[in-house]
């Protein structure tokens, strides 16, 4: 059974995360899709800032001995196939795993329908009818290393950008941070929102991309030791939270509840609070065709995330900053799936 302190820490960090997601409109589906669809880079910049902040934060904390990094496994077949399916799913669902979750808190019924599909298929793929597909892809294409290298927990055999070339992770971290900051400097224009008093800026208006990125990066940072203290040595995640939630409900077994379960519940609450304060909460739904589309999108999100062993949060926001090769491959695959689907669905004349 999960400890009450773990429940509380998961809920609190989830509420903060949900609040920040709603205020920053932080959705990776929009971030990646809009590069090609609207030639818009505002949310992408927020994602880059969040990755840089959490990457630096994780490595500082690991260097100080507060945490031990725990990069996800590299199984190229599962990372590529799962990521691609997830990328298709997020365009159809109108949101990634975190985007769909926070929009439930805004009262968007379409996202709630997508979430139902997401939860269902996460359980189906994790422990139900599709579990063999997942197991096959994960076991047959898995690549491990023998030396995890510094800052990584000793039992971990996942390849990272640092340990495959045998350099100190800090060298890789600094190179990536410089590249990221370069991209931000090049595309810095646009998306600043400066009007209004400080409390208006925080509670009433959408946050600027840099504020959003910094806040989400810091939340990802504090999530790591908090989650590790609850026996789950990993920072933020969404998919595991929802699948444990549904597993607990359907199987009546509270032992599967984890820190991540309470994190996702917190995200919905935090987003609802943020939307309520800003006057952006409203129960609303699109037409029946779109609802069906979002449900199918949700199903693909769950199948893809479980096959790839992570969604956009588990891989892009949590795994990439730990330099995990599996997360980087899954991340690229998510983006390709998103672009292909956005092109076919939204851009073809």
């Amino acid at each position, binding site marked *: 059974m999960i400890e009450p302190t773990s429940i509380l820490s998961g809920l609190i960090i989830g509420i903060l995360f949900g609040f920040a997601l709603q205020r920053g409109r932080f959705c990776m589906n*929009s971030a990646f899709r809009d590069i090609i669809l609207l030639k818009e880079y505002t949310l992408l910049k927020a994602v880059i800032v969040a990755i840089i902040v959490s990457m630096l934060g994780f490595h500082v904390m690991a260097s100080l001995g507060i945490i031990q990094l725990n990069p996800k496994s590299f199984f190229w077949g599962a990372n590529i196939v799962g990521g691609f399916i997830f990328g298709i799913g997020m365009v159809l669902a*109108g949101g990634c795993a975190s985007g769909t979750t926070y929009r439930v808190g805004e009262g968007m019924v379409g996202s709630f329908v997508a979430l139902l599909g997401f939860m269902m298929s996460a359980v189906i793929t994790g422990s139900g009818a599709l579990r063999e597909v997942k197991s096959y892809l994960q076991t047959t294409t898995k690549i491990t290393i023998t030396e995890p290298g510094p800052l990584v927990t000793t039992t971990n055999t996942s390849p990272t950008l640092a340990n495959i070339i045998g350099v100190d992770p800090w060298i890789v971290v600094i190179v990536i941070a410089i590249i990221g900051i370069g991209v931000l400097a090049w595309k810095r224009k646009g998306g600043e929102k400066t009007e209004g008093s400080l409390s208006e800026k925080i509670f009433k208006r959408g946050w600027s991309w840099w504020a959003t990125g910094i806040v989400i990066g810091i939340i990802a940072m504090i999530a790591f030791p908090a989650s590790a203290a609850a026996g789950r040595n990993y920072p933020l995640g969404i998919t595991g939270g929802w699948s444990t939630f549904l597993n607990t409900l359907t199987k009546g077994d509270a032992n599967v509840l984890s820190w991540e379960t309470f994190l996702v519940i917190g995200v919905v609450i935090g987003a609802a609070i943020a*939307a309520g304060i800003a006057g*952006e909460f409203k129960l609303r739904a699109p037409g029946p065709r*779109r609802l069906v589309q979002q449900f199918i999108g949700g199903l693909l999100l769950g199948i893809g995330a479980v096959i790839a062993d992570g969604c956009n949060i588990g891989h892009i926001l949590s795994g990439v900053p730990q330099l995990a090769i599996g997360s980087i491959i899954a991340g690229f695959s998510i983006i390709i799936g998103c672009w292909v689907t956005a092109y076919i669905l939204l851009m073809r004349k």
Partner: protein
Amino acid sequence: MSGELKPTETLDVRGEVCPYPDVMTQKKVKSMKSGEILEVLIDYPLSAERIPESIKKMGHEVLKVDKTGASEWKILIKIK
């Protein structure tokens, strides 16, 4: 609103999900003639912030963004 700005057409994208409000607004704007005014009714916060930006980038004029209720906005666009 004392009728000083009569919209030529109204586009209601309330209830729609990301990114349909943006895509539908851009499509509508492209189909309209210079000088006409488009009124967009919207309830999706991200697009309510993003549409005025992208419309300005397309070279049109955003006359007004009014918050009309809980998560509801009205955007008035003048086609250039």
